[in-house]
């Protein structure tokens, strides 16, 4: 989505107007808005999700609990979940991809604030009808034999992809593993890459 230069100044003014009205009516305080914004700025983004994925790769029992009931498994990570979570697992034969066609539902409590492309019209319209072409836009070319499973999150459940663990990472700690796991991989538009030296070592 490009920003419309004709609308942008108006929108900024309108935002300020609305906020000032809510403030003078005593319905919100400027401090509360500022505090909320600084919380976003300290947002850890997709790190929580990455830690969960790394744990699942290392701990088969945790992985089973995670796939069984995502929200319950999250409790082990002390994540304040506000919605049920369904974790779907990628395998050599199946690739999962998550979208919300009707708005932009997103598992923010594990992945942070959503990227703009996730909320844009191109992704929302195309992920369901031509997921393979969308993955190509991300530079991911799947083998024809791989089945693509799309998840359109239209209700309260949020979806996160458990990506495939790359080869050659047995020597890494769980934290080092987590550092490899990208937000895009947990939405299902990328694979997790092993660090360059590990790949070379294979």
């Amino acid at each position, binding site marked *: 989505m490009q920003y419309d230069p004709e609308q942008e100044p108006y929108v900024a003014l309108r935002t300020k107007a609305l906020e000032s009205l809510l403030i003078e*009516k005593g319905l919100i305080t400027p401090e509360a808005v500022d505090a909320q914004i600084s919380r976003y700025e300290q947002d850890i983004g997709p790190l929580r999700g990455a830690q969960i994925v790394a744990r699942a790769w290392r701990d088969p029992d945790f992985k089973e609990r995670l796939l069984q009931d995502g929200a319950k498994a999250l409790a082990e990570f002390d994540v304040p979940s506000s919605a049920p979570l369904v974790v779907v697992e990628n395998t050599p034969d199946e690739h999962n991809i998550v979208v919300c066609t009707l708005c932009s539902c997103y598992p923010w409590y594990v992945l942070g604030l959503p990227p703009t492309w996730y909320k844009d019209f191109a992704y929302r319209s195309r992920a369901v009808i*031509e997921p393979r072409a969308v993955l190509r836009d991300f530079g991911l070319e799947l083998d024809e034999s791989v089945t693509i*499973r799309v998840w359109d999150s239209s209700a309260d459940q949020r979806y996160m992809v458990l990506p495939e663990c790359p080869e050659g990472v047995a020597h890494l700690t769980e934290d080092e593993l987590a550092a490899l796991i990208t937000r895009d991989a947990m939405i299902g538009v990328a694979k997790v890459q092993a660090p360059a030296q590990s790949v070379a070592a294979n």
Partner: protein
Amino acid sequence: MNGVHDMGGMHGFGPVVREENEPLFHAEWEARVRAMQGATVGRFFNLDEFRYGIEQMDPAHYLRSSYFERWLATIEYNLVQKGVVTSAELDARTELLRQQPDADLPAPGSVESPWRTAESFPRPDLPDLTPRFAAGDAVVTRNQHPIGHTRLPRYARGKRGVIHLVHGPEVFADTNAHGLGPNPQIVYSVRFDARELWGDAADPGGTLNIDLWESYLEPAPG
């Protein structure tokens, strides 16, 4: 409603463009809209009303607007609908700020509002409900075209699928968006063959799962 927001399967929106090192917000006003949403939804209006307010945008405006512009539009729409602020107040304040960006504004809390006592309301408690369908059941979605809010996308209406997961009870968005009560129903993840939805345009062998409320579904005939 059959609105432009119901984008699944539409063509013409170009490639997906990924922004490297994207900032959390592209402008200060976006952050403030995001924070105001957190401070108003679940207090003056519910999340389904929030979503429906976006759908009420003029379709051309919707397509011209960035994500947080659409949020601003629905926060305004809902606050005006509920009577928390008026459009006239907003127009006047916007115009004042346009002419005098540093205008003196009334002090915090200096204007009375009956809404000060509004407290956050949680989603209502959900009763135990007996699911009509079980995993593996063949279902067909209703071919419905309500003028109001719904979460059954157009591309999945009148289509055959299979119950994949039984999620449990949830507030019914279609009524909750219109002040008609939470009316909880069981929600299911229904799996569709991509071919059932898209014909020859489908990704071969692919599937789509969509979360659907029980009243969207009927047992598949035959």
